[in-house]
């Protein structure tokens, strides 16, 4: 075979390969594009398809560049052998490369920062895709004129604890600062932030929802901590939090989320319909069904643990920090364990024979330490009967998130303890020579 025949055969093979790859690519791309442009947006499918499209499109682009290089190689005269000597052309290529970098990077970064799907850049133009509570509550708490007398800390399980119901039952002001995936280390940061605002007082009662397994974990905190939190985080965590922001500027996941939010706003003029918050921090969902599938999924997700876990050292540090802050401020702390759906509780026991005996190290730790503190309480509401709640859609959004109906019953069950905590706090503040948190609090306490 002469060289011309060889080149022709190579070109035929190349064309066949490119055609086959093109066919496979089209088979992959068309369904993904259908998912992205379908009128009914499914967030999970959209994000998955967008991620695959970004990756696959980038690989196709790379392959196309290599193909161009290969074709150029076949036409050797187009490669300038003497180019090393042409400094001006070298510079033009570096500049062109830089323009290419900027031309892709700037729109991606701008869109990500403007839409801010994870609320990392304090951009207030649109709602967030995730974690609206950390931003919302960090912005809204300082707007209060006075420090409320009771503040609810916790995770999303405490979102629907109603400050309004607390006011009705106990006659005191309240605010809900519960945040998604809230943990003890988050509450320490939040307590320090509260001390900065209004009259530089902690509330009289810190009502803290705790769930074992949610004791301390900086990974999530550093991913989503609002900028105002950074100065209260340990230095390494604050650095990580800044790194997370830097990484998210050019990131496939955050870019896909930004595109999804952009599409949602263009299509509906509003953001996601997840947790929404009232001005006093109470959260509610107006769409999640309490169907069997949600419960089954939650039940299936429970890991099988047969060992007795130890109390996390980071949790002990955070517990001590909270206790110290409360002692300095004459505040009381009421820890409470909310009841999961009875089906989930039963699954915990089924999956873990040690669950009732030793699987809740935080509860055991606090129980053991209660005698040391006269301003600290622990309410164990693990069983739904303890609050007289209901296990239907009226009482639960899903396997672990109670509606305000059940949470109101929880507040009713906790009312006596909260009153005692308020009384102790007023006494302690008088001993410490501290004023009450709220100008109206003195009279309210006397009324009680």
């Amino acid at each position, binding site marked *: 075979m002469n060289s011309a025949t060889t080149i022709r055969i190579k070109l035929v093979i190349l064309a066949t390969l490119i055609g086959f790859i093109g066919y496979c690519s089209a088979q992959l791309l068309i369904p993904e594009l259908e998912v992205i442009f379908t009128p009914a947006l499914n967030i999970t499918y959209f994000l998955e398809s967008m991620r695959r499209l970004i990756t*696959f499109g980038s690989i196709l682009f790379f392959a196309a560049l290599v193909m161009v290089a290969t074709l150029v190689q076949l036409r050797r005269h187009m490669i300038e052998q003497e180019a090393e000597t042409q400094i001006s052309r070298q510079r033009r290529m570096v500049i062109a490369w830089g323009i290419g970098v900027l031309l892709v990077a700037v729109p991606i970064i701008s869109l990500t920062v403007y839409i801010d799907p994870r609320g990392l850049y304090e951009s207030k133009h649109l709602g967030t895709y995730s974690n609206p509570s950390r931003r919302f509550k960090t912005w809204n708490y300082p707007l209060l004129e006075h420090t409320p007398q009771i503040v609810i800390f916790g995770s999303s399980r405490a979102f629907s604890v109603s400050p309004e119901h607390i006011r009705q039952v106990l006659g005191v002001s309240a605010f809900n600062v519960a945040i998604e995936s809230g943990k003890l280390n988050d509450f320490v940061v939040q307590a320090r932030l509260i001390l900065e605002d209004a009259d530089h007082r902690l509330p009289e009662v810190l009502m803290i929802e705790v769930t074992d397994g949610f004791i301390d974990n900086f990974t999530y905190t550093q991913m989503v901590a609002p900028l105002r939190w950074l100065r209260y985080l340990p230095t390494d965590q604050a650095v990580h939090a800044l790194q997370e922001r830097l990484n998210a500027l050019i990131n496939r996941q955050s870019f896909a989320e930004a595109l999804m939010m952009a599409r949602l706003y263009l299509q509906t003029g509003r953001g996601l319909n997840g947790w929404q918050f009232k001005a006093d921090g109470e959260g509610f969902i107006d769409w999640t069904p309490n169907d069997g599938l949600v419960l089954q999924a939650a039940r299936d997700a429970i890991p099988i643990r047969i060992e007795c876990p130890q109390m996390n050292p980071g949790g002990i540090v955070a517990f001590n920090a909270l206790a110290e802050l409360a002692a300095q401020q004459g505040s009381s702390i009421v820890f409470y364990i909310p009841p999961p759906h009875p089906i989930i509780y039963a699954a915990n026991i089924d999956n873990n024979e040690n669950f009732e005996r030793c699987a809740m190290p935080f509860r055991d730790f606090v129980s053991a330490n209660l005698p040391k503190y006269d301003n600290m309480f622990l309410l164990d509401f693990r069983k739904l009967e303890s609050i007289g709640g209901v296990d239907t859609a009226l009482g639960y959004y899903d396997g672990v998130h109670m509606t305000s109906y059940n949470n109101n019953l929880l507040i009713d069950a906790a009312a006596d303890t909260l009153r005692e905590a308020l009384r102790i706090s007023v006494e302690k503040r008088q001993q410490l020579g501290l004023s009450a948190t709220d100008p109206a609090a003195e009279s309210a306490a006397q009324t009680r």
Partner: protein
Amino acid sequence: MPSCCFSGLASYGFYALSGWTLALLLLALSLVTLLLAQRRSLIWLAVLANLGVLIFFKYWDFGLSAIPSLNALRLVIPLGVSFYVFKHIGYLLDVRNGRTTATRDALAFVTFSAFLPQISAGPISSFQDTGTQLANLPTNLAADQARRGAIHLSVGLAKKLLIADTLGISLTAITGSGELAHGGLLLSWFTVVLFALQLYFDFSGYSDIALGLGYLFGVRLPPNFNNPYLARTPSEFWQRWHISLSQWVRSYLFMPLSRFLLRRLGMARSRLAQYISNFVTMAVMGLWHGATAPFLLWGLWHGLLLNIYATIGITVRVPRVLLLVGVLIGWALFMSPDLAFAGALLGGMAGVNGIGTAVFLRLFDPFLLTVMLLAAFIAFSGFSEGEDIQAVRFPLYAFLLGCLLILSLLHLGDVKPFAYVQF
């Protein structure tokens, strides 16, 4: 501040991120090497010191693995220890053999030892080349070096973040599924091809990034890859795959060993000398990757391939695809954590578990197959290295490579560690 000083500080600063004691160890070893190289009679002592560090850190854990009660004595393997020790030994042997003179430029030498772009996983360069460049760094970066650096970075990041890591996710899923233990012909070959592509794009991507960073520091590092899967013979494969390590073992092990054996056995038995040299060299190459039986077997397998081709290749033109099959069998050993896994995988490739269509179709992913096809297209294009790409000198092409860099960086959040950093 001289540029070499900046490069040295940046290199040791980067290395100290893996542990400041490890950075001190590297600095101490490079100073010992530098000092002992001044006296010809002490050079073997310096070689022993370097080998001692390599063996102690790299093979200590292997020794301990036989004694579970001593697990507490396991050590952290210093980042890139195999690579910097080989650079030191290469320098010492060059000085001893008169190929270079012992340097007194301590700054250039310690910077050479820890040079940031190549410290993690090579390429293994000689002091005459890299050290001399470091000692004579220009104050300003030349436009040509900036262009080469930018293009190598774009290509390297695309190889690593777009292709290697995408293939790596699927590879982890398949190997973690447990199906390979009794996988059929289809799944076994598919997995090994997947591994071959993933490893190539991972390591050659790393090498392109290293070359790109080297250019941005003002240093031209030797290329490590040259379209290896286009090789026709095993010796050509080793001139195209991990070139710097191949050249190192050729210069400092294969050649001296061949000469020694020729002297002992005589020219009449030169073929036998070549066979033994090939086996020993490739066995050492295998053990360099780790003290495990599969790595040793992988090395010996390549020794066997070299010897077979040395015997028949002179008279018979062996089809390229046969070499590819041989290389893939080698990768099956290379990717195996132990002999049991290697046996199961090779058995599957031999068809002892049947074709296994059902299992294969259950794990089959059209997305993965298309990405593999694209990866194979790039790998077999003959134009997949940064050195090839930078030969295209259109500003528009450079512009598109700049776009590619950001598209690759979008995937940085999902990055996996470079495969060769563990060695």
